[in-house]
């Protein structure tokens, strides 16, 4: 079958002896369209060709996307199962690896109960796999302890959206409409570096005169484009959003009809925001009053605006509050559910949207169903062919699983598509927790820092060696195509889970020949849920450039814009957020007098386990650094490039200084893509948002020290 999809009149370069396979990037939520070049003779991946006709990204890619294909046939690939013997990994057959896993899993579960095994998933993989991870944990292993790396990524956005709008679809509108918006209010997102190909849509709008307001402690590449840059202190988003709403009310920018008909809590919100005068807001956020006022007027006057946010606002103990408050700004202006306006979060991982919908989360089942809800359990149990009472109860969040490893409640862990000893906060504790396990299994295709700690490493296939679907940043379900066969002995994650389930006597629940069968089951499992995929098919995805969920019936075309008539709450009305400013869990002290925040650079993805192996990307950025203002550098007498020590009560790191005026004078920034001694997550705070259980990666108090020779 021809796997090269191209629209009429669009030309690609196809070299002699090569074919193209149409797919999407494996990294961020933009899921840029691309064609992978394959040598027809030896079936090897040889390069990439822009997919000019992909509706969202138009052939554009960031450097990660351009070089993504280089990870497929990479010399570092793990090609056989590995078993650790006397501290060393030795190559093993699948039989040996599965034998060992079976005996350990069975032994531990017999002695300590089903819940002695935990599963730690991820969302940089297809919907089919993400869905199966949930089923594998609950049916294959029968454990309640499952959570996933999306907890560190999208959980606060999910929490905030659910509270205010009743449903968590990352974007309420398709992004192809963004060019028609006239104001963007962007908080805690450096989209130019983290989702670079999105920037084309903002430019399109800007070329027509759209305004840009960016809230970020740094003057990022994104903030540089802003008409107003609100350079807030990390962790003060709640005050900023309340302050803006105070002004929207004061200057009567509120869409009263919309608010009356479609929102609850307006009076309460009015009361709460009353104290957030520009003066008070400026005192907390340290943003100049006139900038706050200017931003409020631009946003307030704009007929079509989009409020957007990302991890900067979400990875805080007030993450859910922040999301709810920013969303409420859009509600006050009557924007959600209308053309070219609304609210959106930037999904960090490739399938951060789809991966959070189908039951990898401790309390969730496919289609955003809830384990706590008996009808939901009944529906999913029916699809899975188990009895409702066999469904394990709700587990705990990702970071909290490490506490359970410390106290030996969880004795074995299966990590699939994740690298928690780099991505978690306070990683010294996380590493110690994993070391306390009796047995650790990791699926990966490169030796990650987490895999190094494993007893068994199972060689997983890459994204180009399997087919399936992902759901992009907009909520559009798209198709990932298989380009080549899995390298060496590697197997897809869904095959691995099925094989283990079979060993545990659960084979009949995992009898799949191809991903499409898993997808069809997912469609049924999600049917009637909020994230309803029943009407999504592979064919429909190809026909109409993806399908936006919900698509509740087979003839449904999908729902590009949501909430046009009503919200997904019980009474159909949105709940305006009434949240005071609480402040981050850590404040500056005499010992830790500065602020530290973390984030991405454009060259790396998540824990860097893939991107740190790509030459081009390493040539651009091979190690972390600490960004600081020249005034701060001068106070500590440090120079550009000089190595300094950063510390918090949890850990320390030594890293070179990068001096720039494009950051607040009291805040330092370190990117997080490295492990071990190079990891800023040795320092970050594990304080959790009480509702979403999202750790506060973005704010902690830190000490800066000049090194003595």
């Amino acid at each position, binding site marked *: 079958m021809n796997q090269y999809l191209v629209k009429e009149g669009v030309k690609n370069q196809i070299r002699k002896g090569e074919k193209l396979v149409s797919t999407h990037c494996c990294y961020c939520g933009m899921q840029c369209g691309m064609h992978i070049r394959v040598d027809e003779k030896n079936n090897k991946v040889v390069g990439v060709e822009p997919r000019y006709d992909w509706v969202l990204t138009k*052939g*554009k*890619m960031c*450097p990660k996307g*351009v070089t993504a294909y280089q990870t497929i046939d990479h010399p570092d690939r793990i090609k056989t199962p590995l078993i650790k013997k006397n501290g060393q990994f030795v190559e093993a057959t699948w039989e040996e690896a599965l034998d060992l896993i079976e005996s350990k899993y069975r032994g531990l579960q017999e002695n300590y109960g089903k819940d002695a095994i935990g599963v730690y998933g991820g969302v940089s993989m297809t919907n089919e796999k993400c869905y199966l991870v949930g089923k594998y944990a609950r049916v294959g292993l029968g454990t309640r302890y499952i959570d996933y790396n999306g907890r560190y990524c999208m959980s606060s956005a999910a929490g905030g959206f659910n509270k205010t709008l009743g449903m968590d679809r990352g974007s309420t509108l398709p992004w192809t409409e963004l060019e028609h918006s006239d104001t963007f209010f962007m908080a805690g997102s450096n989209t130019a*570096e983290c989702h670079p190909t999105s*920037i084309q849509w903002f430019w399109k709008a800007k070329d027509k*005169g759209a305004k840009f307001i960016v809230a970020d402690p740094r003057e990022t590449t994104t903030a540089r484009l802003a008409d107003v840059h609100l350079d807030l202190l990390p962790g003060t988003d709640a005050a900023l959003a309340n302050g803006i709403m105070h002004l929207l009310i004061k200057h009567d920018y509120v869409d009263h009809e919309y608010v009356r008909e479609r929102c609850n809590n307006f009076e309460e919100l009015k009361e709460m925001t009353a104290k957030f005068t520009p003066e008070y807001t400026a005192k907390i956020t340290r943003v100049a009053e006139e900038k706050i006022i200017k931003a409020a007027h631009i946003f307030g006057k704009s007929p079509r605006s989009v409020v957007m946010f990302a991890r900067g606002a979400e990875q805080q103990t007030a993450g859910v509050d922040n999301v709810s408050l920013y969303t409420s700004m859009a509600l006050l202006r009557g924007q959600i559910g209308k053309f070219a306006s609304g609210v959106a979060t930037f999904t960090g991982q490739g399938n951060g949207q789809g991966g959070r919908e189908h039951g990898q989360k401790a309390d969730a089942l496919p289609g955003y169903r809830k384990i706590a809800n008996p009808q939901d359990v009944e529906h999913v149990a029916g699809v899975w062919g188990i009895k409702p009472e066999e469904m394990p109860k709700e587990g705990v969040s990702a970071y909290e699983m490490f506490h359970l490893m410390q106290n030996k409640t969880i004795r074995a862990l299966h990590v699939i598509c994740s690298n928690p000893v780099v991505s978690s906060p306070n990683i010294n504790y996380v590493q110690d927790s994993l070391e306390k396990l009796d047995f650790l299994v990791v699926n990966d295709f490169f030796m990650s820092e987490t895999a190094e700690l494993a007893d068994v490493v199972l060689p997983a296939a890459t994204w180009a060696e399997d087919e399936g679907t992902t759901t992009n940043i907009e909520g559009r379900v798209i198709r990932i195509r298989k380009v080549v066969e899995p390298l060496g002995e590697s197997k897809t994650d869904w095959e691995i889970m099925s094989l283990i389930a079979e060993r545990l006597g659960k084979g009949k629940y995992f009898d799949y020949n191809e991903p499409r069968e898993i997808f069809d089951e997912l469609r049924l499992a999600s049917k009637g849920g909020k994230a309803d995929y029943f009407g999504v098919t592979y064919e429909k995805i190809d026909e109409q450039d993806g399908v936006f969920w919900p698509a509740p019936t087979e003839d449904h075309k999908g729902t590009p814009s949501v909430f046009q008539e009503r919200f997904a709450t019980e009474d159909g009305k949105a709940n305006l957020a009434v949240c005071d400013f609480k402040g981050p869990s850590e404040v500056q002290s005499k010992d830790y007098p500065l602020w530290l925040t973390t984030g991405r650079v454009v060259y790396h993805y998540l824990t860097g386990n893939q991107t740190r192996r790509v030459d081009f990307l390493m040539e651009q950025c091979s190690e972390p650094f600490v960004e600081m203002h020249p005034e701060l550098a001068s106070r500590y007498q440090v120079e550009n490039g000089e190595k300094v020590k950063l510390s918090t009560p949890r850990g320390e790191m030594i890293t070179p200084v990068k001096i*720039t005026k494009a950051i607040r004078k009291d805040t330092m920034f370190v990117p997080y893509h490295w492990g071990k001694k190079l990891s800023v997550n040795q320092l970050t705070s594990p304080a959790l948002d009480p509702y979403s259980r999202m750790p506060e990666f973005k704010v902690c108090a830190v000490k800066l020290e000049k090194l003595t020779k």
Partner: protein
Amino acid sequence: MNKIMYLEFERCIGCRACQAACRECGDHDAKERNFVEYVDFTESRQTFPMLCMQCKDPACARVCPANAIQITEEGVVLSAMEEKCIGCRNCTFGCPFGIPKFDFETNKMYKCDMCYDRTRNDIAPMCASVCPSDAIRFIDFEEMQQLRRKRTQMNLVEGKKPQEGNKWDYVPEFFGVYTDSQS
């Protein structure tokens, strides 16, 4: 080919996708031929791309004693022919923009050839194809003129009027790089 390589410096977000993509072009030996620089990182994150201007009367080719730098019928100034380049590095000194690069291992120059194997078939060069920010574009001559007019219009709409002495503030980030032969 009646297309323009069109650079809009201000749009550059410094992602260097253009450089990663340059390596991917078939004839490029996995070596990039374009540049992305910070204006001054201490002051701001503004970066800008730089590629070969495909000069009409290219200094690089003129100063080449071996006639290694060929100009195609469309006017694209190609990278030096490997068998002809004698490694004297004259081109690297001759080019006013610092474009030709030099490989000290093979003792040969290499430079941007506008992805000639693509552009001669009217397919955009790799850098312009991937640039997420449209800082590099491969567009028709007329589209370029339109863009330039539009920019000035936008300024006027925003109430900014050029004064004597700052007229260039209204267009400086535009930089047309083009070949003028029609084919």
